[in-house]
């Protein structure tokens, strides 16, 4: 490694805040993006044969694998025509030095709960209509009423950053996540931290309109 690159990476480890501040002062982020730019997204569907449905999504250096397993169960007595949707997010120790092995961390529990909220309480997936088909050859996908997509934002020193990375995230004063469906309708908005004045318009509305624009761009990638 070149001497200057080594110095920069040591500075980044020791003074992450000052490191990011100097980038922000130059109107650029450590990975070379402008403040409002998003990381590249790639979607790959159906690569896992043991799952009934699967997707592999890459967002910058983040990789998420999701598998769906379908099983047969007796419905609840008070909802005889409905099945169960059980989403869980796992943050294995494999993916970052921040995560420890063992039962789900607080962070994983909160994320699972938010995912569950988006998927279930808004009735995005049509409930079972009494017919369960079991077939090796024909597959009948679950009917999704809506395809919600989530977008994250962060505020650092009164600067709004779109799609913050793992390095930027712990330094943020406020994080905002906006979930938008394919019609551009809001599904969920979560803001953690104080509302900060980032200049021009109201921060939250800026985030929402930016998420809607990005949802249209990503539309083509979602099968």
């Amino acid at each position: 490694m070149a001497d200057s690159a080594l110095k920069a990476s040591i500075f980044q480890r020791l003074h992450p805040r000052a490191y990011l501040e100097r980038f922000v002062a130059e109107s650029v982020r450590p990975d070379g993006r402008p403040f409002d730019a998003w990381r590249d997204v790639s979607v790959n569907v159906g690569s896992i044969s043991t799952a009934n449905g699967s997707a592999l999504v890459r967002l910058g250096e983040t990789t998420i694998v999701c598998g769906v397993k379908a099983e047969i169960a007796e419905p609840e007595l008070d909802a005889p025509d409905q099945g169960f949707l059980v989403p869980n997010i796992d943050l294995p120790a494999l993916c970052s030095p921040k995560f420890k092995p063992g039962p789900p961390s607080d962070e994983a529990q909160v994320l699972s709960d938010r995912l569950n909220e988006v998927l279930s309480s808004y009735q995005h997936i049509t409930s079972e209509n009494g017919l369960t088909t079991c077939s090796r050859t024909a597959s009948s996908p679950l009917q999704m009423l809506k395809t919600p997509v989530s977008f994250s934002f962060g505020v650092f020193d009164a600067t709004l950053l779109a799609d913050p990375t793992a390095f930027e995230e712990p330094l943020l004063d406020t994080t905002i996540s906006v979930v938008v469906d394919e019609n551009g309708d809001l599904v969920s908005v979560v803001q953690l931290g104080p509302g900060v004045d980032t200049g021009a318009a109201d921060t939250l509305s800026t985030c929402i309109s930016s998420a809607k624009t990005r949802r249209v761009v990503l539309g083509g990638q979602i099968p």
Partner: protein
Amino acid sequence: MALDRRRINGPEESFPPIFDSDALQWKVGDARKDRSPADIRPIFLQPGLISQANGSAYIETAKTKIACAVYGPRQSKNTAYSEMGRLNVEVKFTPFSCIRRRAPMRDAEDRSIAVAIHQALVSSVRLELLPKSTIDIFVTIIESDGLDGCVASGSVAASTALADAGIELLGLVTSCAASVVGKEIWLDPTEEEGRLSKGTLVLSCMPALKKVTSVWQTGEMKVAEALGCMDACQEKCTEIHSVVAQALLESAKI
């Protein structure tokens, strides 16, 4: 069973669908489908995919998909002083990795695989150079097609990840599984073939030093068959060694 409040829970009982056509398609004595007895599944190996880890590797052998990350050497916490470093292996199955859904923390299968991978690797790592330290190896099985194949591929991925992390090794560990099916020895058995076999053997070795690091045999087989399996595995391990070396070389060039 007590409700696990840390996860989102489904119904208490649920069952995978059973299909009428689920009977085994071929019986003992039939020739092997798709490949010859001495063939292994093609290996795709990519070191360094996990940017946050000190070293990592992803391995794919046909349907088997395994990701592995190495963190460390880092300070051992909450342990007494030790001259030697510690090698810690954790294996995790994703819930969708097998034909039956794997509920979290239901069995000890992942621990027995972790022990097998630990055994395969521990004699190759120069732990005497790392006092007071721990090397954590995390293996996630994304899709499994035969447990013995998972042990073998997991060991290869873990050794590649250790090399990618720049940890001093005596040699790269490669590993191969073999099953006795009828009178033949089939290398690298799939899940379906594993069910047909009488016994299975997984051999891990350091081909560069011509040394065996671990032999893991289950089921019944004659001594001559066990020796035959070991010979066949060792031969394949040498071939796998060049695949691993090539993958590491290519990732180092970038």
